[in-house]
């Protein structure tokens, strides 16, 4: 019996091609994680979304943050809790808000894949000046770039 069959050769070749595809795909990734991304395996729609990203702080809040923290920024509670952003005394620290958006916590991912530094700054400012928070000092793109691991947006 030949152990190293033609079929197993093909399997090796196919594996090499798949790895090449895995390595190549993130560079082409648009807003939606690609099904072939090494980071985000699992089921996905299998298409290529082309969405206009949000820019202002309000747009980012409504199109991203609101998905979990709710329209009134009060979060929600079930088996565990999505924290309220409304009237949150921790937001006196702009670094706290920015770090949370950049790094995430627990189930919440960091958002540097989705949002460039300017948009992170915009939404941090928006949250700190809405929903019963009154911390008027704007968060700048420069503040966001201070956080370890944040890269300037590619232009």
């Amino acid at each position, binding site marked *: 019996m*030949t152990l190293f*069959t033609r079929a197993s050769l093909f399997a090796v070749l196919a594996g090499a091609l798949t790895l090449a595809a895995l390595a190549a795909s993130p560079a082409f990734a648009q807003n939606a994680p690609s099904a072939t991304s090494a980071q985000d395996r699992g089921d996905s729609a299998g298409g*290529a979304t082309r969405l206009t990203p949000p820019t202002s702080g309000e747009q980012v809040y409504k199109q991203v943050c609101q*998905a979990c923290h709710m329209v009134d920024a009060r979060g*929600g509670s*079930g088996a565990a809790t999505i924290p309220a952003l409304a009237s949150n005394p921790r937001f006196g620290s702009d670094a706290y808000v920015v770090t949370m958006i950049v790094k995430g916590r*627990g189930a919440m991912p960091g958002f540097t894949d989705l949002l460039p530094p300017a948009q992170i700054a915009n939404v941090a400012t928006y949250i700190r000046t809405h929903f019963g928070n009154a911390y008027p000092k704007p968060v700048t793109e420069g503040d966001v770039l201070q956080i370890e691991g944040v890269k300037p947006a590619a232009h």
Partner: protein
Amino acid sequence: MDTGTPRTTRRQLLTAIGMMGGSAALYQAMTTMGHAAETQFHGSPQLTGARKGATVIVLGAGLSGMLAAYELTKAGYSVRILEYQARAGGRNWSLYGGDTYTELGGATQKVGFAEGNYMNPGPWRIPHHHRTLLHYCKQFGVQLEPFIQFNHAAYVHSTDAFGSQPKRYREVAADFEGNVAELLGKAIDQKALDSDVTAEDKEKLKEALRGWGMLDKDMKYKTGLISSEHRGYERPPGGGVDGAPIPSNVFDFHDVLASQVWKNMSFFMNHEMQTTMFQPVGGMGMIGKAFARQVQPMITHNAKVTKLFQDKSGVTISYTDTVTGAATQAKADFCVCTIPLGVLNQIENNLQPAKQAAVAAVPYSNSVKIGLEMRRRFWEEDDFIYGGHSFTSQDISLVSYPNNHLFTDGPAVLIGAFASGLGAYRLAGMTPEQRIETALQQGSVFHPADYRKNFMDGASVAWSRVPWTLGCCARWNEDTRKEHYQTLVAVDDRVVLAGEHASYVGCWMEGALLSSIDAITRLHKRALEA
């Protein structure tokens, strides 16, 4: 492939290897022989000989938790399951007419689908190589039917191509392959590949390109009967006087590239997306129900775990009854915890600090699914689409057509969105009514005359607002895998974690089951060593 060796000989050899070297050796041998490379499943775990009176508490009645309970009971343990929901099954779930679902934030949907119709908010398709899941489906009597994964007649739509008009997948894919074949042929003729390919192989490659890419004798991809064999006809072949086919016009290559059809094409090549795929008859939730039938007496529902504490004497779980508000404690010798990491991260515990760090390190993904019930199957009756997916560059990502009850009259449910990333965040942030409206508006691009007109009822699940997961699935990356994965899956004295998050088949039911088998096998070993 058939190597000509008699099957009995091969089986006898494998049996001998299995007996001598155990399942790992058997798996290694089978892989070398070209078998079994598709799965790490080696059969149900066959655990036996639990110490008399030994107890296990399982947290979570999803697939991993219920499988752990089932197999540990067979091994001789006395098992209890605590489940937050009133329903067993976890993310294995179908929504039927009459069901009510309340998401975080309080929005409640009453599903109005006709009897027998459903949507699967979570898992909805099963790869043919997810052998663990298929094994237990068969064992627990879950009837499976084909899931129509790949449909050449469905549409591809991009706002960046063809003036935003949808085109049939077969047309765009054929044109992509045809153009690539022609260009590669040119490269060969221009001697651009002379250093890579021998003269003999150049001829073979050109022949392959001509046949694969539907090129003419001059190695051109162009409008004609040859290209129409792949992309379809303007007038298809028929009978009698007008039987002769008329070819269809190939598209401008610029549009073909702009459509990014290659993403759809390569998607279908992914191991997990390859045909054949399956779905349970009657909804994905049938699997959870079948598992629950095996372990239902062990389950305490409406139990919100508030504390996980272990010491030399055992494991103590504090939980609150979400209906009565009563706080209770449950004790056991060991614990299999299948609670999603984002939830577990908020539960007070005395797990090892490194384990706590691993639990905290993995964020969750955020998909959104929307089911739309339509009065009639206009996609079948008017567009000849039977199952499969139409892809779009809009938030909804796709429209997916039902795989069952084809050619029937009466209402049917299609999937009107399977969004991820930004599209899913946008849809999740909306009210359920706004989501349906957006899905109708975006999905109308494929069926403008019929989509809205036939709409009857809709339901949506935004996984970032699911009260018992706070997300869809664990999102590992190479860095977190390296730093935390082994710590996460290691037995921590009396506690072991299981679920899709404790696997490399993340976000699939198969991962939950493989993780469960591995976790209880190691926990059982530790229990016998104690």
